[in-house]
């Protein structure tokens, strides 16, 4: 097999281009603010064996989770017809948490599926015990409609029974329908582009380079890991629970030659709180950290992940099994897993690893009825401080690590929902001091115009994001309820509460940790 270094580069452009284009289509046609304004979705292309060839991941938490979906779909359905589309969201069967709905469909060349395209989008509501479907649950069944891998489309025809079943279980069915259509539109685009590649260059060449690109990425990742010092590095960090207790996440990172193993032995057992994750999410966090440490711009595909091993004992909060609640695992626990991995690697790579970032996505969901009686579900995540790196201050008021979603414009949400934003600003001085300072957190204050159910899933309200090498920790986050009479109550990091018209919910997000002691401060 001859490989041309020029064609390799050209195919990398082509595959990434296809995934990107799927993403653009999904964003443009989606209905959920999560998709259209906040880019909470991913699209990917897989080969016939289910190896990922390219991914447009705006959300790193989907890195390991997309391959898991494709693997399950291929295992469940050995036979495919043109126009089939499999849908799933079951965390324990190819999904990660219920709001993330994944679709997978084949791309045929001749009579065989040669590639698969997949999309995953965070839907604003999939039912369950609270609007927005990120509830304070104790088992999966409370979190929304569970969709095992099933065919939503068979040979191009929508399975109305499946669709009606799904839509009957969600709060905003019209919006869901629109988002599912958007995902399918993205698939159509991906299929068309891959087909035109076959037509222009032949199946054999396209497949040769799709498999060589994986080898290429693997080589680059191995080469990078080889420059890291061999050894075993351990770290532990806390996850804050609603009842005031903490859960512990532990990792031992073993670097050996060109491979790295992340072992989460010693992590606490599965929780009765929605902060468990499936192993795919834990893998995503580990993959993310390794990708950040690469000096070269490596195409993200299955090859990248071959030198990276992630293990965790079953029945732990980082490797949960049915029917553990997992709603917040994606958004919160994944951030802490990232912190733990960074803390361990900081010992091996002190010149590359940053201090802890805000370590939470500050998930706010507000649901209720508008004055005209129509129901709504609003979900948003808030940025905060990024940890300082060994050579730069952290950014302020941004999403960190596993997330990079946009905010919803104040003018868009006030026209759509019965609440008002009173303040949206940086919190001065909230970044950890140091030679390099952590980024500042944000404050966003909501004033309710009608009674509503509010659910918060947030972390780093008790344990501040840590600094490194003498840098100070960032300021902790705070959730405050200000009632109409001005009375202030500090609320816990996680709660579901009925709030009333005139109540104000003030969310202050954490600052990032500082790096290096301030003695050699640049400001002198």
């Amino acid at each position, binding site marked *: 097999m001859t490989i041309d270094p020029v064609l390799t580069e050209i195919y990398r452009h082509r595959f990434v281009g296809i995934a990107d284009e799927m993403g653009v289509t999904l964003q443009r046609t989606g209905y959920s603010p999560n998709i259209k304004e906040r880019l909470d979705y991913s699209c990917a292309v897989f080969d016939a064996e289910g190896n990922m060839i390219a991914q447009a991941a705006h959300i790193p938490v989907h890195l390991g989770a997309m391959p898991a979906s494709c693997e399950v779909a291929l295992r469940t359905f050995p036979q495919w017809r043109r126009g089939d589309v499999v849908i799933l969201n079951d965390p324990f069967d190819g999904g990660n948490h219920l709001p993330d709905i994944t679709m997978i469909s084949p791309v045929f060349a001749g009579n065989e599926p040669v590639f698969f395209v997949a999309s995953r989008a965070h839907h604003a509501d999939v039912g369950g015990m609270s609007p927005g479907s990120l509830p304070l649950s104790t088992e999966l069944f409370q979190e929304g409609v569970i969709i095992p891998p099933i065919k939503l489309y068979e040979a191009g025809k929508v399975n109305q029974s499946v669709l009606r079943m799904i839509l009957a279980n969600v709060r905003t069915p019209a919006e869901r329908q629109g988002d599912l259509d958007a995902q399918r539109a993205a698939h159509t685009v991906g299929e068309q582009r891959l087909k035109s590649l076959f037509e222009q260059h032949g199946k054999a060449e396209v497949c040769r380079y799709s498999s060589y690109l994986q080898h*290429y990425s693997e080589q680059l990742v191995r080469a990078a890991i080889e420059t890291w010092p061999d050894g075993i590095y351990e770290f532990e960090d806390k996850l804050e629970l609603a009842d005031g207790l903490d859960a512990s996440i532990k990792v031992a990172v073993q670097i050996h030659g060109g491979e790295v193993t992340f072992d989460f032995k010693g992590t606490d057992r599965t929780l009765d709180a929605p902060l468990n994750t499936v192993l795919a999410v834990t893998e995503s966090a580990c993959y993310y950290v390794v990708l950040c440490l690469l000096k070269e711009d490596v195409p993200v595909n299955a090859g990248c992940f071959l030198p990276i091993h992630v293990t965790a004992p079953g029945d732990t909060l980082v490797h949960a099994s049915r029917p553990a609640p997992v709603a917040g695992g994606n958004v919160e626990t994944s951030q802490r897993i990232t912190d733990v991995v960074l803390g361990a690697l900081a010992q091996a790579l002190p010149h*590359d690893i940053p201090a802890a970032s805000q370590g939470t996505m500050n998930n706010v969901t507000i649901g209720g009825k508008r004055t005209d009686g129509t129901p709504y579900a609003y979900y948003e995540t808030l940025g905060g401080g990024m940890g300082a790196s060994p050579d730069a201050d952290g950014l302020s008021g*941004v999403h960190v690590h596993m997330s990079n979603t946009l905010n919803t414009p104040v003018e868009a949400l006030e026209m759509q929902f019965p609440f008002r934003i009173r303040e949206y600003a940086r919190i001065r001085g909230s970044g950890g001091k140091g030679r390099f300072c952590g980024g500042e957190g944000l404050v966003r204050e909501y004033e309710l115009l009608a009674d509503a159910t509010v659910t918060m899933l947030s972390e780093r309200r008790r344990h501040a994001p840590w600094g490194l090498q003498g840098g100070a920790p960032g300021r902790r986050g705070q959730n405050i309820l200000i009632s109409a009479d001005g009375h202030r109550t500090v609320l816990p990091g996680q709660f579901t509460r009925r709030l009333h018209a005139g109540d104000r919910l003030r969310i202050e997000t954490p600052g990032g940790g500082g790096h290096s002691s301030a003695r050699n401060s640049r400001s002198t």
Partner: protein
Amino acid sequence: MHRNRRRIGIDVGGTFTDFAVLDADGLRVYKAPTTPEDQSQAILQGLDVLEIDSSVPVMHGTTIATNALLEQRGARTALITTRGFKDMLAIGRQNRPQLYEFSQSAAPPLIPESLCFEAGERIGSDGKVLTELEVPALRELMQDLKKERIESIAVVLLFSFLNDVHERLIAAALEKELPDVPFSLSVDLLPEYREYERTSTTVVNAYVRPLVLRYLTRLGRVLEGRSLKVMQSSGGTLDARQATLQPARLVLSGPAGGVVGAFTLAKHALKTPQPQIMTLDMGGTSTDVALCPGRIPQTTENSVCEIPLRLPATQIHTVGAGGGSLARVDAGGVLRVGPQSAGAVPGPVCYGQGGEAPTVTDANLVLGRLLPSRFLGGQSPHVLDTELARRAIAKLGQSLALSIEATALGILHVANATMERALRRVSVECGYDPRSHVLVPFGGAGPLHACAIARSLGVRKILVPRHPGVLSAFGLLMADITSDASQAFLVPLAEIAAAPKRLVSVINRLEATVLSRLDSDAAQLDCSLDLRYTGQSYELTVPLSLPVTSENVDAAGKAFHTAHQVRYGYSKAELPVESVAVRLRASVVQSPEIPNPDTGAGNTPFNLADAPRTSVYFTADAPLSIPLISRDRLHTGCVFDGPALVVQYDSTLVVSSGWRGMVDLWQNLHLEWLDHDD
């Protein structure tokens, strides 16, 4: 000769200032080195050389506003926002620029924290005043502003597009208290929803305004009373004095002139009022592409230096691949080209200014596609050193185990792939088939790559302008005089169709605004609506025929479904559609004839066999000896087959084998793919 009034287009670029003069005798072009310290020097020199008297109107393309943003040297600007939102500009959309990067910095906002101020006030989402503007606080604010030696001010309050009362009150206070400081109100510039984008657009306007005002005032003096119009991002020109009020409309004008030039040229050359073309403008560090589906495409979703700029602009996609793009071999042994560029210094290796990494230009040189003696007519400040380029490419080739020629061809293939992707982005990804479009390459390097890129896209026709290197200046001559305005109008389409009266009054207001900026009563009005399926948050702009009647509104709705189908592959006629904004453009149409004195009669017949020959590599094994044609000899009616190299003062064209060249009445060169197999 009324429609052929003399006129001159002057386009100032980084290296050269280009001139195009149109009069009864035809088109003349000229290039002078740009004088960066005072751009008007080069302009004066050109006017002298071309003997342009003061009665000739000047159409001007300037990058002064763009450069101020790129180099962060605009005015000391203050921002006034609604209380609670003074960090709006700094927070942006709360995403970080790089996804996989532990250490990253964001460009500092155009306005520092210390110059962001708040006004006590609040308008609700229904346009009602929730909190009246607090007068004592406003007075204090005026005092603060005075202390800060502010040069320009941006005012952006929440929901001002529904109710501008507080922005106007602040304006009145500013006029009284700081009479010498120009201010920009968001409601005047962009009365549309989404506060961050409205803020960033208004701030850009305020930031570049004093600089643009100074520049255009000085230029006006230098031009001694000649009429002066400047190019806007939209591809239309506007009187200089009007342009200084809303200079944010100039920021993306750089590549617009080229698209207007290509489009009007194609109207003539292809003999159709609605040519379907794709433009390929390849420069030193980047390439601009656009697809014109029978019209010049417009968008408001623009940004500059990652700052959103939501004003009408010619829809152009830019990629970081150009003549100066650097080639390298990465750790995985794969050849990469760009996006890093050698820039002006050190420039390509062959410039001999110390560059070591080979560029696309170096690859073209070693393959025989650029001739050192012909580069810019031999007048280039750079002598092209082929030997230096060969050595650099040989070194790169060693790590790929490829010969010099194979490596150089590889560099071109990778660069072409980037440009091909850019053209796909504006064609297939927007629902257009590239094969039904004519490729119009221009800029110094576009024609070098056009044949290869056309083949990879299945394009069968290429139109090479007579003067590819000065097409932007030509576009200035051809551009209409235009003025744009918009207004948020969030109403279900069915409601508009049932009772068009409200929309009519909005359009009447917009009409007064756009006409007041034009010095003409013969303007054509074009109205459009931004529409979406209720609940979506991305809009498509579709034309609305005037007057506003139920039928015309329904037609706009139908046009939306069609546009959605083309762009996204599906449409849902049963879903409700809502309007988000209404746009109005007034144009004074300028369609000067391009004289074509060369009818081909009496020309010496062109014989390809007489042409000298030159060696060019199309494959790595051996060079082909192909005809070297001087563009000046290609008169109307000439026909020849590739392969051939066509050289001229401002550009070089590679005609690959399989293409036939034909010269039209204006000496444009039409290339046609001869192989009918595909």
